[in-house]
């Protein structure tokens, strides 16, 4: 990537700690890097507690007061993490927007959908009066809803319609980057596929960059250009979908795929990954995946593995990455 095409969103060495009630700290993100260029679709995948949602909230500057963060976040080239809330506010929704899993439950139950959208437009000085109403109509059309929806209330809509409305609201200020946290997990499969189709179309029509956070591995291999697999607050592997599926270099990635049921791949036996992720309220010595890893060696206990590049754009945080070591 050349200097002139600097990434829309770039984070480096992000660390996030949450204060715990007992006085301790939970180290939720442990040095995460991320880059998203124009029209790129990045998938962040991992199991519960891996830090993927914390990462999204950090990128939006929406961490709770009990959290502290270090590192750097640059939106359109400008540093925002150091600038605090004031810096985030100049970019939030305008350059970078987010859709949540439960966003459809966040709509105001006593305000018509149309008014909720125009309110967003007024709040961010995008448009007022009839111009705002016209823009609201455009937005709902954009997400594939009929404009009668503007006169409806939240309870009159299905889950899929609500998720489309929250998508329309996220797009109100024409952001360049859309973050989506499990945007279809709460939906039925058929409706989820429709909503994903809309998101995919929007990335093309609006030149949107997408950061899709999910636990659903097949979903990101179908949707995204690049994948980052997270484990215990770190990125453990990053690459194209073909890199991480066909040429995976991290044992966790391989096991995660092997644990995922796939209707299209016959009845291969699924594996379960014994054990559970380490506690992040205590320091993690060595590799965090070590207790569950089938190829762990003594060396893994002392040194935390760094992301090792194995090919262009493909890296894994395992000391055996690129060495063709087989899992036992």
């Amino acid at each position, binding site marked *: 990537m050349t200097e002139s095409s600097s990434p829309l969103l770039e984070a480096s060495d992000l660390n996030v700690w949450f204060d715990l009630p007992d006085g301790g700290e939970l180290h939720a993100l442990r040095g995460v890097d991320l880059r998203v260029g124009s029209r790129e679709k990045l998938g962040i995948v991992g199991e519960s507690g891996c830090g993927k949602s914390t990462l999204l909230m950090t990128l939006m500057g929406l961490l709770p007061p009990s959290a502290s963060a270090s590192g750097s976040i640059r939106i359109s080239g400008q540093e925002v993490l150091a600038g605090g809330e004031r810096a985030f506010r100049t970019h939030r929704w305008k350059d970078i927007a987010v859709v949540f899993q439960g966003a459809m439950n966040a709509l105001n139950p006593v305000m018509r959908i149309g008014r909720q959208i125009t309110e967003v437009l007024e709040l961010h000085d995008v448009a007022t009066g009839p111009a705002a109403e016209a823009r609201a109509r455009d937005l709902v059309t954009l997400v594939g809803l009929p404009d009668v929806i503007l006169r409806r209330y939240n309870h009159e809509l299905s889950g899929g319609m609500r998720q489309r409305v929250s998508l329309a609201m996220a797009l109100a200020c024409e952001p360049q980057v859309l973050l989506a946290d499990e945007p279809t997990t709460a939906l039925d*499969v058929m409706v989820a*596929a429709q909503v994903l189709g809309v998101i995919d179309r929007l990335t093309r029509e609006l030149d949107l960059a997408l950061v899709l956070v999910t636990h659903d591995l097949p979903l990101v291999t179908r949707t995204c250009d690049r994948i980052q697999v997270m484990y215990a607050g770190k990125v453990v592997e990053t690459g194209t*979908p073909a890199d991480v599926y066909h040429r995976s270099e991290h044992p966790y990635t391989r096991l995660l795929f092997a644990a995922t049921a796939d209707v*299209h791949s016959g009845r291969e036996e*699924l594996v379960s990954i014994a054990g559970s992720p380490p506690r992040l309220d205590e320091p993690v010595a060595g590799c965090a995946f070590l207790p569950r890893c089938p190829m762990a060696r003594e060396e893994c206990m002392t040194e935390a593995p760094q992301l090792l590049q194995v090919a262009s754009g493909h890296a894994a945080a395992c000391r055996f990455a690129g060495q063709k070591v087989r899992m036992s």
Partner: protein
Amino acid sequence: MNPRDLDTPSVLELDSVVASYRRSARDRKRRTRVVDRVSLSLRKGELLALIGESGSGKSTLAATALRLVTPDCGRVLFDGKDITHSSQRQLRGVRKRMQVVFQDPYEALPARARVRQIVEEPLLVHGIGRSRAQRIRLVHQALERTGLSPAPLFADRFPHQLSGGQRQRVAIATSLVLDPDVLIADEPVSMLDVSARAGILTLLDDLRRDGDLGVLMITHDLSVAAHYADRIAVMYLGRIVEEGPARDVVAAPAHPYTRALLSVVPPKDPLLEVRAEPLPGEVPSFSSLPQGCRLVGRCPWAVGACADTDPSLEPLGDGRSVACHRTGQLPAGTISSRRHSHG
């Protein structure tokens, strides 16, 4: 015993069952049919997956099988015995042999009880075990069968000290301790992390292979069903639209709804191209059912007959049944094709 063997006796059988709910508390006459003329049988040692989206009636069907809902018409048979109109007292013995595992292992277990007490509770309810020592022995056996070993160690724990997968094992142990003939598992892994899912599914698989236990697994996840089930029954708006051996249903779905469901599930392999072809629109509500086939407004292959008459579930001859007017006329398109390797 081979569960695919058609001679294996059914342990649970639903025969043309209709179940409905009142439309409102005041209106006693108008009812909404949520399960409409469904026939289904679960054989001993079989794992049958009931697939459907929310609102398809799959949970009501399970409640009818358990006789928590009394059907309007049709029959429910347990181990050959008609229990359609059995009284609550008569059902007690049946319920002991027909157990349920729910979706959410975080909600299903009481927080302040130890695993030992949780698994012992059903024994007390059903008056099993002459002494405490005998009950504890049964509790330990049940825990060991679910893989919570050493049992005395896990028996001493509280639910909050267990992982999601371990909690679901405890929930399964509370069923197993009664040595049931049927286990109804309602979305048993959808709340669990991917790494814990295979463990629970393999456990259910092993349990039914070890004995005569029939497992009815209710799920929205076609992938999970394809991996573990002997047979799959697909429900849409209160009707079973396709039923048959899991392998065949998944390899060549015959009903347009099953085909669409299969297409929207992405493959793991990014080089395997599966075109997502979701049906347009959303599932209509039970109160505004189309007159003909229930899929008619959304089906890309609908013809005139589909709008007029509701197709019945007809056998195809290979152990499969399909409810579609256009059976045999759909293009034999394959769902997936291998993309040219580009990496």
